[in-house]
């Protein structure tokens, strides 16, 4: 019973780990990923644009299947996980063989292996010991480190290079898994969002992409932001001076730019946009003396009276003349009127309303200006006109918390190494052995194998054998001589 279970598990494993499964999964990932580039994706497209591009029925189907946000659907993630599982299964399947190959190198070729080896040469010799010694010297000179293998009192040579390159495939596959792991960690614990700040503002919440908000464990303050241009007017550089306030203390100060983010507690802030906000910081204004009728129903300008030009800082009080001051009470970027009351419609600068307090000779007047409508409600001694307004700049920052990115980068580096080993490191094996030539004599059999780049290796093998031949020639006569002397 247990036996059949094990064999079912084994066959399941080999199915999951087969190259066929792997390639089918890769094709599926490719097709789905390609679909995601052709169909508009919700996270990157405005809802109105989606509605314009697809009819309601089509859009409903696409949404239901998840094709409008392919890369975040459960089934796409499941597909990627299936790829990972297939890689793991394949690695487990193949590991015993690879390990056996690595741990127990084949040091002494048997006759059938010698016959099957493609790269081989035989040199006739007289004395096995001198021949082996000569071959050993030659191999060493060629940069190979031969070991002596002694079996049944016979000595043979075995030399190899880059044996570990048999693991290259494992390195590459492990690196891919590491990258997946990083992606999963970031998907689960990481977040990405956006903040928009104007100088002076403090903030500790981030707007996430899915419209939720995330509260940072610290507070961020913007101390200034700006843009520098190229001579042709296109932007050259955006910068923002940021301060991190952690438990009430200024802990970090940094001017960030594009490609130079601020990192604090693993959260990174990237300069991503810059522009004019709808927040007014100062106005250039004109004040024209006027008279107000006793019942306050009519207002008339005083003929010949001089215009007073002044600048009003929105956070300060300005002087119109010796007796009169003015300050801004409220600024509504987009207003509407209902039941005689003024309300805010939106935060976009569409149809602004401004309320001022004008204090003249001890009396305070509330003044409303509606610049777009060209209207006002003003019974103060001065008619007011806005000539120009200065807006605060805002800085747009991308916020990213990616605790898994170390795994991604480690994976990338590992993959680079793995691919290098896989494609450019050659496992070379050379054997030298004395064998009977079948005619009563002896030969030195030299054979070699390489696991890739075989043409280059043939050349190399030729060099090695030439070296051995030379060494044999120079040592053999002496060997014969000494052997003769010994007799």
């Amino acid at each position, binding site marked *: 019973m247990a036996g059949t279970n094990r064999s079912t598990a084994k066959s399941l494993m080999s199915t999951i780990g087969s190259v066929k499964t792997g390639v089918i999964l890769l094709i599926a990932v490719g097709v789905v*990923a*390609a679909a*995601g580039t052709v169909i508009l994706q919700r996270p990157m497209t405005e809802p109105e644009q989606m509605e314009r591009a697809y009819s309601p029925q089509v859009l409903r189907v696409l949404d239901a299947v998840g094709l409008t946000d392919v890369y975040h659907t459960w089934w796409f993630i499941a597909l990627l996980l299936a790829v990972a599982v297939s890689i793991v299964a394949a690695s487990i399947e193949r590991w015993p063989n690879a390990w056996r190959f690595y741990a127990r190198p084949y040091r002494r070729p048997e006759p059938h292996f010698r016959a099957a080896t493609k790269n081989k040469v035989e040199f006739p010799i007289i004395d096995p010991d001198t021949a082996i010694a000569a071959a050993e010297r030659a191999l060493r000179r060629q940069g190979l480190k031969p070991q002596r293998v002694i079996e049944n009192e016979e000595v043979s040579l075995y030399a190899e290079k880059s044996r570990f390159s048999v693991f290259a495939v494992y390195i590459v596959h492990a690196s891919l898994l590491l990258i997946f792991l990083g992606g999963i960690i970031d998907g689960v614990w990481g977040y990405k969002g956006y903040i928009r700040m104007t100088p002076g503002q403090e903030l500790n919440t981030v707007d996430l992409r899915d419209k939720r908000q995330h509260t940072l464990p610290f507070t961020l303050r913007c101390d200034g932001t700006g843009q520098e241009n190229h001579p042709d007017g296109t932007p050259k550089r955006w910068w923002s001076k940021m301060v991190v306030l952690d438990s009430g203390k200024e802990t970090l100060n940094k001017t960030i730019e594009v490609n130079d983010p601020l990192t604090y507690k693993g959260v990174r802030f990237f300069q991503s946009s810059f522009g004019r906000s709808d927040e007014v910081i100062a106005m250039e204004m004109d004040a024209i003396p006027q008279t107000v009728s006793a019942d306050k129903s009519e207002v008339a300008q005083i003929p010949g009276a001089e215009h007073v030009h002044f600048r009003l800082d929105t956070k300060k009080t300005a002087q119109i003349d010796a007796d009169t001051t003015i300050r801004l009470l409220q600024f509504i970027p987009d207003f509407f009127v209902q039941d005689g009351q003024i309300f805010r419609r939106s935060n976009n600068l569409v149809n602004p309303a401004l309320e001022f307090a004008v204090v003249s000779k001890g009396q305070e007047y509330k003044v409303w200006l509606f610049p777009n409508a060209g209207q006002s409600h003003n019974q103060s001694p001065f008619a007011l006109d806005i000539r120009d307004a200065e807006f605060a700049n805002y800085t747009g920052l991308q916020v990213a918390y990616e605790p898994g990115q170390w795994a991604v980068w480690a994976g990338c580096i590992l993959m680079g190494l793995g691919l290098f080993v896989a494609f450019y490191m050659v496992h070379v094996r050379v054997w030298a052995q004395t064998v009977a030539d079948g005619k009563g004599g002896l030969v030195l059999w030299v054979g070699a194998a390489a696991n890739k780049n075989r043409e280059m290796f043939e050349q190399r093998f030729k060099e090695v054998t030439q070296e051995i031949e030379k060494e044999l020639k120079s040592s053999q006569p002496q060997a014969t001589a000494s052997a003769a002397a010994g007799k």
Partner: protein
Amino acid sequence: MGTQATRMKMEEPQSVSQGTPFLLVVGLSTVFALLLALMNVKSGPLFTEGNMLFATLIFYSAASALYIGFGVTGTARFAKFASAALALGFVMNTLAAGHRWSVAGRPPFASIYEMLLSFVWTVALLTLVTERKYGVKLIGSVTAPLAVVSVTLMQLLNSDVRPLVPALQSTWLHIHVTLAMLAYAACAMSFATALMFLIKDNIKSETLLALTSGSTSLIYAAIVATRFDGGALSVVGWDAENKQDAILQGGARLFVNIPELGWLFVLATLITAAPVVLYFVAKVQNKDNLLGVANTAIFISLAVQVLTLAAFFLRANGGAYPPADPLNSTVMEMMQNPAFRNGFPTALPASPFILSGMLSGIFASLLYLMLHWRRTGLENLLPSADTLDRVTYKTICVAFPLLTLMIASGAYWANQAWGTYWQWDPKETWAAITWLVYAGYLHMRLTRGWRGRRAAYFAILGFAVVMFTFFGVTYLLPGLHAYA
């Protein structure tokens, strides 16, 4: 490799003086083109980037003509002169790129124009190297026309040295793009050797006929699908004053309709598709005589392509045409302007991709005809099928790590600039798909022992995906890589 070269020499027993008239024609027209170009340089310095690029184009064209001549006739001298022309073009290309580098103060990788400049440079270099090292002289007959199409395209693209937008100001840009160019050039090489493998491997001529006709008609079908508008062809308007595409408010491009041209493109689609249709009919009904008809159809297809190109040249170069979207408010406003009473202007530079698509189709048909005429001769010029198979595999072994590093460096840079290493933007996704295709190739080859024809088809598919990632994504699927 050395034995390969010697065998090549032994197989070319032609006399030394063969083919002199053709050499004279190509040589004289090169000189003539250079002189003509020189006469056009009325004032201003001679060694500007534009002039050097033009010289590059002339030399690459001469090289293409000679390589194809070599392919058709097998005359060894043609190959020698072709290499020389390619080398001269390469020198000019290097000067143009160097000039741009020194003017911009940064390597030329910022716009699609600059990327092509670097791409062509890499392709020419690799061709010269492969030729020397492996003796595959015929490779130029694929890569030299590719270079000509690219440089022609560059002549039409905006080549102003523009400052980099903030997101592109990073050392990673150079690393990323260098890797991309090297990887894509290696992919192009593997494509060329895979094609040659198919030729050497006795693939039936008609299969190549079907491939050529199918891909050409696909180009025209794509143009018709996106640009056909009630018989007219919509092309982008041209703003001659600013030398750029006519842009409406909000960044959309202004399209104008060239009347009747749309029908011509429909005709071209049908006629270029005729050989592949005939091929399938012949296969299904087992009528081999239809294949002969298909071969004749390729000639007609080539003639129609040239005609369409000529018509496009005449119609789209200058002239004023009605807007494609006359109800657009900005367009209506612009039509009040008396300058646009007769319509809006367009120019060839506004349609670089239509043009290069058409040119590629013509080159593909010419290459097929070369093959059709000189099948046996060509096969003798090629190294053994085994060598070509191995060279294809080796170039992919170079391309794949480069692709990996390109994606990794892009991810790292995106992480620096935008705070995300991966956000499934179309270019990223397609780069990953390219990677997957080549990963599939390697798996099939290494574990399943795929060799020869199937591997060659895989390599060709890989390069098709590369081309789509490089051009298709930029123009069809806009995203973050909008800069290039």
